[in-house]
């Protein structure tokens, strides 16, 4: 048997030499890796093209999309991530005195003068908050904000400054539990959404502002608890507001808590398209709340947990959505839902879900158009509100064992920025703010990990950092506005 003959080390050496040689020539393996994070040339090309396409008649507050060089992009990303992007502490004076003039360009908001005026209107509302008034902020987004990520950080910070408490709106059934509250449900309760996989058995589109509703048949119980690891401000609730859609035969709601006495309330019969709310005053302590429903059929379009005044900041994640869902919701119902409250600011954080499917510039433009239609529509529903669009973050894709930023990411961001400015809304480029191309791959390898290994989503720590960056940018605008009005 030939295989029983002796095998010398030199044979092994020869085996390895041939193997390495062939692999080197056929697959171009880099035998000593220096750094594999690269940005594709297409992305650079797109970024440059878009830079030239900027609509000239708009006077932006800041409108810089710096020319990107691959090596510089990588170096910048690595350099930025050697030290945390945000070393500043929220409560240190240098943070709170930061103004737009000394804010890094990539962290600034972009927009027209009209958009700037809108933002100032929001600041006026913020300053005008008193013990009788409440202002709402809606943070709509894709899976990047699921679990109260990013929103939770902003809410905690803003409520400390401008008052208010509680997590804001939560759905009756929470499939992706948030850091804000822990939820459980019992009984015959079914969830319907207008994003992701749509259940066509629902015979209407009156989903409300969360684009999701839960239908209770006969009886159902929803238990909510403050999350032990959540932000402190999220854990105390002074009010609960249950938002009801259709309830054909009416029903009843009982709210009870560890410190709140049990309260029973009738739910008036209503047909589809109805929007009503039941407000319950709570003990204002950290407690478990139980909402028990009884009735033939009751649709719950949300539960607001919060305070009677101050800021209510709502986290509304729509998994797999690219922000084009709003027009498909029943307009009258949607309007009633949102106009019921004083909505100061609407944040739209989308774009990420469209990135893997956009292969050319035309597709990016098409998405931009569709997004613009939605933005325009939302502005007609909430004409007094300020709109802030947050584009997609850096997103990595692995190709031939190399991490690349998605080629068309630049084009999509540029389209979103363009239509946002045209619609007199503000644009915040999280891609640039976080460090630009290649950052997601660097964050996925950093300690602690700031991005997950899919190179798309942030880890909770990464999301917190993004929340802090956004907070810093908005506060810089706020301080600048304060200085401007003081100077007048």
């Amino acid at each position, binding site marked *: 048997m030939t295989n029983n003959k002796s095998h*010398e080390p030199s044979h092994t*050496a020869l*085996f390895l030499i041939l193997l390495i040689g062939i692999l080197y020539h056929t697959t171009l*393996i880099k035998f000593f890796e220096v750094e594999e994070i690269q940005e594709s040339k297409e992305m650079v090309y797109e970024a440059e093209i878009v830079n030239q396409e900027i609509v000239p008649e708009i006077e932006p507050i800041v409108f810089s999309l710096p020319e990107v060089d691959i090596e510089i992009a990588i170096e910048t990303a690595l350099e930025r991530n050697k030290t945390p992007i945000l070393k500043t502490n929220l409560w240190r004076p240098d943070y709170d005195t930061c103004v737009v003039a000394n804010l890094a360009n990539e962290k600034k908001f972009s927009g027209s003068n009209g958009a700037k005026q809108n933002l100032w209107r929001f600041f006026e509302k913020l300053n005008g908050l008193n013990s009788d008034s409440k202002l709402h902020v809606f943070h709509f987004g894709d899976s990047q904000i699921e679990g109260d990520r990013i929103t939770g950080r902003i809410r905690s910070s803003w409520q400390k400054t401008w008052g208010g408490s509680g997590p804001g709106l939560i759905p009756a059934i929470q499939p992706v539990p948030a850091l804000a509250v822990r939820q459980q449900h019992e009984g015959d309760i079914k969830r319907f959404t207008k994003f992701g996989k749509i259940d066509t058995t629902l015979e209407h589109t009156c989903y409300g502002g969360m684009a999701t509703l839960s239908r209770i048949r006969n009886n159902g119980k929803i238990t909510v608890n403050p999350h032990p690891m959540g932000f402190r401000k999220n854990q105390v609730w002074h009010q609960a507001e249950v938002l009801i859609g259709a309830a054909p035969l009416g029903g009843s709601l009982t709210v009870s808590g560890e410190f709140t006495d049990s309260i029973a309330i009738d739910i008036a019969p209503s047909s589809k398209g109805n929007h009503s709310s039941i407000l319950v005053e709570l003990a204002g302590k950290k407690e478990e709340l139980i909402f028990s429903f009884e009735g033939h059929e009751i649709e719950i379009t949300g539960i607001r947990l919060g305070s009677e005044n101050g800021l209510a900041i709502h986290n509304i994640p729509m998994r797999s959505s690219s922000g084009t869902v709003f027009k498909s919701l029943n307009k009258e119902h949607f309007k009633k839902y949102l106009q019921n409250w004083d909505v100061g600011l609407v944040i739209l954080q989308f774009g990420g879900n469209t990135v893997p499917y956009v292969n050319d510039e035309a597709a990016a433009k098409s998405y931009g158009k569709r997004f613009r239609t939605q933005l325009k529509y939302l502005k007609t529903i909430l004409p007094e509100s300020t709109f802030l669009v947050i584009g997609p973050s850096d997103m990595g894709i692995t190709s031939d064992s190399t*991490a690349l930023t998605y080629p068309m990411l630049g084009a999509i961001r540029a389209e979103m920025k363009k239509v946002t400015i045209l619609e007199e809304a503000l644009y915040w480029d999280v891609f640039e703010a976080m460090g630009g191309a290649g950052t997601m791959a660097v964050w996925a390898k950093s300690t602690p990990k700031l991005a997950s290994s899919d190179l798309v989503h942030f*880890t909770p720590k990464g999301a917190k950092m993004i929340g802090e960056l956004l907070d810093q940018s908005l506060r810089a605008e706020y301080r600048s506005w304060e200085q401007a009005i003081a100077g007048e």
Partner: protein
Amino acid sequence: MSTDLLFTRPAFYIFLLTVMVGLSMLKNKAAMRNAFLFAASLFFYWKTSAAFVFLLLFSTVADWGIAAVMDRSENLQRKLWLTLSVLINLGLLGFFKYAYFFADSSAMLFDSSFRVESILLPVGISFYTFQTLSYSIDVYRRKVAPVKSFFDFGCYVTFFPQLVAGPIVRAKDFIPQLQSKYDLSRKEFNLGVWWILTGLIKKIVIADYLAMNLVDRVFANPLSYSGMEVLLGLYGYSLQVYADFSGYSDIAIGVALIMGFRLAENFRSPYKARNVGEFWGRWHISLSTWLRDYLYIPMGGSRSSSIFSVIFSIGMVLFAGLMFREGEEVMNLGVLFLGGGALMMMYASGVMYTKWGVKLATYINILATMIIGGLWHGASWNFLLWGALNGMGLLVYKIIGRHLPWAKSENFLAKAWGVILTFNFITFTRIWFRSGSSIGWDTAAGDHNILTEWFTANDLLYQITNHLYDIPPLDLLQGHLMVISLMTVGYILHLMPTKITSKVINGFTSLHITVVFCITIIVTTVLWKVGAAAPAPFIYFQF
């Protein structure tokens, strides 16, 4: 740590080529060959752990010197030398691996603010300290003669294929190989290539893919996934950790073999085990047997209790007293009295009824061994709990399971029942194992937040118990089709009858070397194409 010399990186094979060139020149000069291998291994460790190479050298010199002196000593002096060796080895391990744990735990239990900052964990310290410890104990027990040549001993301790993550090699198995000439058949060379290729496939195709596309995501943020996805993540992790660690061991064994050294198998299809005891006889065999020979048996094993068993049981009662204290109490006196009373009754009954006493001692020794085995993996309450759960699993089988009528039946259904039950139990305990292991050597040491680890485990359980069906099964299947398919293939291959796998291996090893070469080219090219961008570290590098 540099990642250039990871088994999955091309640079490692250039390093291996250099070593093979050296070996081909020195193959018949054992002393020089060993010195060369020692130097190559130190270079390898320097490239992976930089200055910690001096720690490795210190440990090597100390144990070599102590063993030499110990061999010439008798009685008390001999014992003292052994004690010194144990203190040095456990001291190093304790300092680098457990300082955080004890500081954090004492801070939590006694509300103190004492913290230990920034101690980096030297890669492979748990493996090579256990290896040198076993050598000192074997020399003390006169089971092996001390190694005369420092280079031979150095080569044994630092042998690069198994230096950073085992298998833990015993001196009696390895030293004789160092003293003999290079001898390898073509069939054995092919077998070495087989081990390396299968190890790479396990690591790159299965472990890294599952980690990136399911497991890491679920464990990083369990609350974002339904209970079913969390369960899928857990079963995925069971396959991932097996493919990762056994993949590493396979490559280590293969590399050692083509260099002419034979290392013992470290895994034997562990998920085919019918009970927890059998599982530990198939999983990380070199550690299980080490713990058996140097911990369980010295503690009394299944024969009697020893002073260690008594200390351990008293320690457990004190620990329970600390954990259940309330308010300003130093300890919960109720728990202390109850536990102490129960302990005294147990020992008293053991003295009165000898047979029961032996059983009791066995149970305590098993539990202690498993808890210490858990803590070997890392400084975390989760590892402690994981070890304890496995210990309980062993006891339940010992007390009840093995007496059940189907326990030893050769009937297929009886076997399948045992396998399924054991696999699910092991997978369930990994909730704590994975939550307490922080992947990567860079995060293994330091910044251990025991509370976060608990919360991760709790969040996983919470999702399983409260949000199991949040995503319909069909959606789950569609959403994770690739992962589920890969897991199915992985488990089928794992459960393949040994007869079939032996045939395949035999077929491969009988191939002509040119065919083996062509297969190697194809497999490595495919692996390079499907491999992840960043070199994913082997999970066990952190232990």
